[in-house]
């Protein structure tokens, strides 16, 4: 058995067709897209095409897409950009306790800059109740930012309902859709989004490139000041190859969705069911409203990093919210926010499937994980049969 990659929520390999699409922009269409001469116009055309494709897949307009240097930058731009721009209107921001650090740490940093924040708690399935959002809105609330699909335990948040509330109250709404774009159908207009972040390397595109959808009329300060690129909202020579790659990957993900996602979901369910048979195992995240490729469980009495290292020895690449994989002592803020105890939260395992995941791989994982869990439990001072 080859190595098995089950960490697609972390990153994905770039599709060969996407690399093919990108290569010409490294060598021939390499011009600065802002220039008047032919090389520049060619680059500009490639950029325009990529923007049109991206906008089309998301149901957005051409000028509503800002390309960024990744998902984290898109989140930072959305949150800091609107915070700074609306500073005179108010200083309160609402978010959830289970956001990705790109949102959470950004909001926390804004707290050091005179803003105030409310971090809404979630239920034991990791779900946020929209009513909580409504209750948290104050006179001076300027932004609500709640993620679409949770990168760790996979729950899909009721962002449409939150968007409705935000619109009703006249507050801007941003969603971090880094985990859903590419796997769930997204229509920003239908969903009522003001801003939405995505990151190409989560859907078989290149790393270091993302996008922020910004609804026409929503104004924000730049995060990166300088040249007039991206209609003055994101300075820096456009990374044309990467942007081409993003658009190509997004379009392909969109096209194959109906074929690929049901199959991933089926394998995901098999995997989840198999792992659940291990004693003292908790399934994390909502059972139904869940990212199609996400499996997240906690095995009591063991710690995540040693689990991952053991799986790696068996050729399986997986992830954990374990503290020891992040260099901190606290386990996953997401699992703790769902009410899990430290002990259980430390023993989390995330397996995220991809378009190239096979039945055989799932079988192999289902064979190895119980053995590894057993081995570590026998070594654990907390475990008593």
């Amino acid at each position, binding site marked *: 058995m080859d190595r098995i990659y089950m960490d697609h929520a972390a990153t994905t390999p770039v599709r060969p067709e996407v690399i093919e699409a990108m290569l010409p922009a490294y060598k021939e269409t390499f011009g600065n897209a802002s220039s008047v001469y032919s090389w520049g116009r060619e680059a500009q055309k490639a950029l325009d095409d990529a923007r049109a494709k991206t906008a089309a897949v998301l149901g957005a307009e051409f000028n509503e897409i800002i390309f960024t240097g990744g998902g984290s930058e898109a989140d930072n731009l959305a949150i800091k950009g609107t915070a700074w721009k609306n500073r005179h209107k108010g200083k309160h921001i609402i978010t959830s306790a289970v956001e990705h650090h790109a949102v959470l740490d950004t909001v926390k940093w804004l707290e050091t800059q005179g803003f105030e924040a409310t971090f809404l708690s979630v239920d034991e399935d990791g779900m946020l109740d929209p009513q909580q959002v409504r209750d948290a809105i104050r006179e001076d609330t300027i932004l609500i930012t709640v993620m679409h699909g949770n990168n760790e335990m996979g729950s899909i948040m009721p962002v449409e309902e939150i968007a409705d509330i935000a619109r009703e109250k006249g507050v801007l709404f941003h969603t971090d859709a880094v985990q859903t774009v590419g796997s769930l159908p997204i229509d920003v207009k239908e969903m009522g989004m003001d801003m939405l972040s995505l990151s190409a390397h989560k859907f078989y595109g290149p790393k270091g490139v993302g996008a922020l959808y910004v609804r026409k009329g929503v104004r924000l300060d730049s995060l990166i000041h300088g040249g007039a690129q991206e209609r003055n909202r994101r300075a820096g020579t456009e990374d044309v190859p990467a942007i081409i790659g993003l658009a190509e990957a997004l379009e392909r993900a969109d096209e194959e969705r109906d074929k690929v996602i049901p199959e991933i979901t089926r394998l995901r369910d098999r995997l989840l069911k198999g792992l659940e048979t291990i004693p003292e195992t908790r399934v994390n995240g909502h059972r139904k409203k869940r990212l199609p490729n996400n499996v997240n469980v906690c095995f009591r*009495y063991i*710690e995540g990093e*040693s689990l991952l290292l053991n799986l790696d020895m068996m050729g399986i690449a997986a992830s954990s919210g374990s503290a*020891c994989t992040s260099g901190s002592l606290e*386990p996953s803020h997401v699992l703790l926010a769902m009410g899990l105890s430290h002990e259980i939260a*430390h023993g989390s395992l995330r397996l995220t499937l991809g378009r190239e995941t096979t039945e055989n791989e799932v079988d192999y994982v289902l064979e190895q994980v119980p053995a590894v869990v057993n081995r570590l439990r026998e070594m654990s*001072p*907390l475990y008593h049969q």
Partner: protein
Amino acid sequence: MYSDKVMDHFQNPRNVGEITNADGVGEEGNVRCGDIMKLWIKVEDGVIVDAKFKTFGCGAAIATSSMITEMVIGKTLDEAEEISNTAVAEALDGLPPVKMHCSNLAADALQKAIDDYKANKQSA
């Protein structure tokens, strides 16, 4: 990230288990931080003749646990008490900076096991 030595001790931990009639037991760490080590020692004539551990924790925690049991067996109590956490880390060809706290765990559990042994002896 980890040295080959760490990975060796992690993959093939030495002296895993409990000693039923141990002369000293030490436990260090807590679930909050995700690291708990329990260490049992058997002492004869002031010499540690056997040591076993159980550890809940990351790769570094398991490897340092394994390493310290190897290091103490055959040592006098005085010698064993001299073992510092850096000595354990060095014996493993180093640990990543963020993992250095794990080596404290092992040395501290050892100290507790020795203290326990001494207390037992005193009260005996």
